């Protein structure tokens, strides 16, 4: 991604990106275009290059920022009404790291409000359209970021993945999307969805770019006590990347509920791996059947808790209709949250209520432990797992938005990774006959992030 070879200026790159962003306006990708600041930064970088200064590994590279990353450029709204008008005084750690390497944010991308959703239809700004079919959803919650990369507006985009919010839109739009090990990248300065499953990650066009981004953004952060000690840039284990790797496929996912073309794509990739000398191992992971249920208890509980701070008292939207404190809370939150936000707040508060905690939250926490152990067991038998990202390719706009359970079922293959904290890389794996991208995910044990990204080249 280097531009230091002076063949192209940063200003040219940024201008092109902004022009493309405007050209694709109908896709509703951006909630904010950072024109002035981006151009200013580009010119500064060009001047520094002219002076022969070291400008960083991402100098002049335009990128798109998911709308839930805090930075003082533009309003950080998480595409939610209740955060309208909020300009952050602080910058997310991950954003600061990218900017320190010279990357230039050209715009903020649309998402399901507070990242609640799998289609970007739950955005206050309306849905983002799929890069390959404008009648279909972009996936979500990081829909805008996925489409921005798929339409080649930017070189990369940031995303957050709480239950598939990077991998699923990546697979719906045919780009790479990476959810790292929990704690690999600091969550500081990213609007929280569910603290124990939230992961910061990226959309990119190649494994090499993904590796570069990870090497920059990863690392322990004193501002996030859940970050792991630095490990990403440690040397790659040669053992794991030897010519012969054991790749597991999960039999539990190989059934009629999965689109036949996706099953076919998985089979094709397995054959290709075999022909390269890798071993395919068939596994059963029965505990994963509890993942979706556990996820939709633990995550709403954390969501309800994390959204408590949006009360209209200190920042963002406040309903002006209220004449007492209870009304202020009630009206602000009733008007400010989207229906899906409210649904999760209600589920979350229900499962945490006194008398229900043991039956729901505690049970789900136990199921989560089983899932963690199931993955540990699996990675004794194989080095990586290869599974579909979601059971279906991109669905039509409006098709599932009024059927929350059908929407939740789209997450069945992605959420268990978040509960277990393991990394997963969504990889483009061809297209359906209708021309819709198919995505597979390569899953590895905790802290295998770099191995995983490098091994994914075997699947190209």
């Amino acid at each position: 991604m280097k531009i230091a070879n002076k063949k192209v200026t940063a200003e040219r790159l940024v201008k092109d990106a902004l022009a493309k962003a405007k050209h694709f306006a109908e896709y509703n990708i951006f909630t904010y275009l950072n024109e002035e600041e981006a151009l200013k930064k580009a010119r500064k970088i060009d001047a520094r290059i002219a002076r022969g200064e070291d400008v960083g590994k991402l100098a002049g590279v335009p990128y798109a920022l998911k709308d839930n990353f805090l930075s003082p450029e533009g309003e950080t709204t998480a595409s939610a009404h209740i955060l309208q008008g909020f300009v952050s005084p602080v910058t997310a750690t991950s954003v600061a790291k990218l900017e320190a390497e010279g990357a230039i944010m050209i715009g903020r991308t649309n998402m399901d409000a507070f990242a609640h959703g799998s289609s970007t239809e739950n955005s206050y700004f309306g849905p983002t359209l799929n890069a390959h079919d404008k009648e279909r959803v972009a996936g979500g919650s990081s829909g805008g970021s996925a489409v921005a990369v798929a339409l080649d507006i930017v070189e990369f985009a940031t995303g957050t993945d709480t239950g598939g919010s990077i991998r699923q839109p990546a697979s719906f739009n045919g780009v790479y999307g990476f959810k790292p090990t929990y704690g690999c990248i600091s969550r500081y300065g990213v609007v929280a969805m569910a603290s124990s499953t939230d992961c910061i990650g990226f959309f990119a066009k190649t494994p090499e770019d993904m590796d570069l981004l990870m090497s920059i953004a990863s690392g322990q952060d004193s501002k996030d006590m859940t970050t792991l000690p630095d490990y990403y840039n440690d040397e790659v284990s040669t053992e794991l990347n030897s010519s012969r790797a054991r790749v597991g496929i999960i039999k539990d996912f190989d059934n009629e509920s999965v689109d036949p073309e996706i099953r076919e794509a998985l089979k094709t990739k397995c054959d290709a791996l075999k022909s390269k000398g890798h071993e395919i191992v068939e596994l059963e992971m029965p505990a994963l059947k509890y993942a979706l249920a556990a996820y939709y208890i633990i995550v709403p509980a954390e969501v309800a808790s994390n959204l408590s701070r949006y009360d209209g008292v200190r920042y963002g939207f406040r309903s002006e209709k209220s004449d007492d404190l209870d009304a202020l809370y009630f009206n602000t939150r009733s008007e400010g949250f989207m229906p899906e936000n409210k649904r999760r707040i209600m589920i979350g508060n229900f499962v945490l209520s006194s008398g229900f905690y043991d039956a729901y939250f505690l049970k789900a926490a136990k199921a989560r432990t089983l899932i963690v152990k199931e993955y540990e067991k699996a990675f004794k038998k194989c080095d990586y797992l290869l599974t579909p990202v979601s059971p279906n390719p991109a669905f039509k706009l409006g098709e599932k938005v009024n059927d929350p359970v059908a929407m939740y079922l789209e997450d069945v293959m992605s959420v268990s990774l978040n509960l277990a904290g393991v990394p997963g890389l969504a990889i483009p794996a061809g297209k359906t006959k209708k021309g819709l991208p198919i995505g597979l995910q390569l899953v590895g044990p905790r802290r295998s992030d770099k191995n995983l990204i490098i091994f994914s080249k075997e699947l190209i």
Partner: protein
Amino acid sequence: MKYIPTIGIECHVQLCTKTKLFSEVDNDARGKEPNSCVSPVDYALPGMLPRLNGEAIRLAILAGRAMNCEINTWSRFDRKHYFYPDSPKGYQITQFYEPIIGAGYVELPSGTKIRIEHAHLEGDAGKLTHFNSYSLVDLNRVDTPLIEIVSMPDIHSASDAHDYAKELWRLMCFAGVTYGDLYNGNMRFDVNISLAPEGAEKLGTRAEVKNLNSFRSVERAVEYEIKRQSKILDAGQKVVQETRGWNDAKGETTGQRSKEEAKDYRYMPEPDLPPINLSAEFIENESAKLPLMPSDYREIFNGIIKSDILEVLLDYPKLMEKLRELGKVPGRERSRPLGQASLSPVNLPSSQIATISNLFTSVLLAEEKSAEYLNDLPSTADLAELAEMNEKKELSSTATKEVFLKLFDPQMKNHGAKQIAKELGLIQENDLGALEKIVDVVLSKPETQKAQEDFRAGSEKVLGFLVGQVMKESRGKANPGAVQEILRKKLQ
């Protein structure tokens, strides 16, 4: 009917850490503008994460050890949810399920032991000030570290409730974990009181009086509740389980919230903070830093300082620390197993310790500027010198007080006790030869002749007059005892 009151007390102690429990903002907001000690973390901006302050853990260990409590190697935080503008996050970060401080006890001066159930770390809430049509929010206090100490229901009288509250305050001050400023809410007490007929096995229904901030109000609230609940029970009615407020001016409690209206706090493990995992070695090292506690001082100074004076001094950790230094007692003896090995004896004549402790109570604490003086106590060497001069009768008791006060005078304190005494001409004349000469001068004066005759005639009381004359002649330097002896000899 006669009822036995059963009382449990929950006490919130603000810890005097440099920064807040979860952010790097100044924790000492005394005298500062509202909302000036607030970081984006305290303010609960989106995407902000708590960062646990290690100093709070260390102070919690000291606080726990001061109450003879077990320190748990494993503890963690939970979120307690409620909506109110004093809680920017919409939840308080506390330790509901696994607290850092386990069971222990506090021993009252009377010897009664009150068991501690547990104590946990949590963040404080902000402060609201209500006006007619609006309220103002000050978030300076948000996430000031607190420990909440929960006692077992071992207290059965208003005076024990008072003594427990006071002893807790002393323990926390001696342990150095809080500023201990009750007026500014550094320690606040919630008192649970229930009555049951004498001999009954089951406890009665309790009422909780919240937010008491003085020992006196703890005592008065308990007295009031005993009367109120007795009246209800005597009338054959039932006490309602509820939270009550205390009106200090009226001296009464009033109902605020009954059990039916109680909030559901929807406790949940705090996912942003990893559990606290302490090694036994760390706990041991930190515990060893606990200074001597009031009970240690009672043991050390038993028979040296009168207990009524000692109980006054025990309100001032700095004075006790000074007396300890003066007595050359090692300060860090807590590394010994709690309550086992005996303490080192005082290594200074008892009379000298008594002199200084008397100066502390009768002079220093009586001074208008005593608060200021407490922060700038004289050196141990100066106090030792002063006590010694007094012991050797080089200083009269009046002169001792005078020199003592000069040890706080910024102009003079550096001169040292002995030099000050000399400069002020306060050293007593103990040389018998010199004293005799002065006595001779006085006895030769015409105005003393009558008194001399009277004394010889058997009037004892004129001796005082003659001693006074000698003292005057010596400009106060003569040792009155010695003068008296010389006079008796000469007037035989």
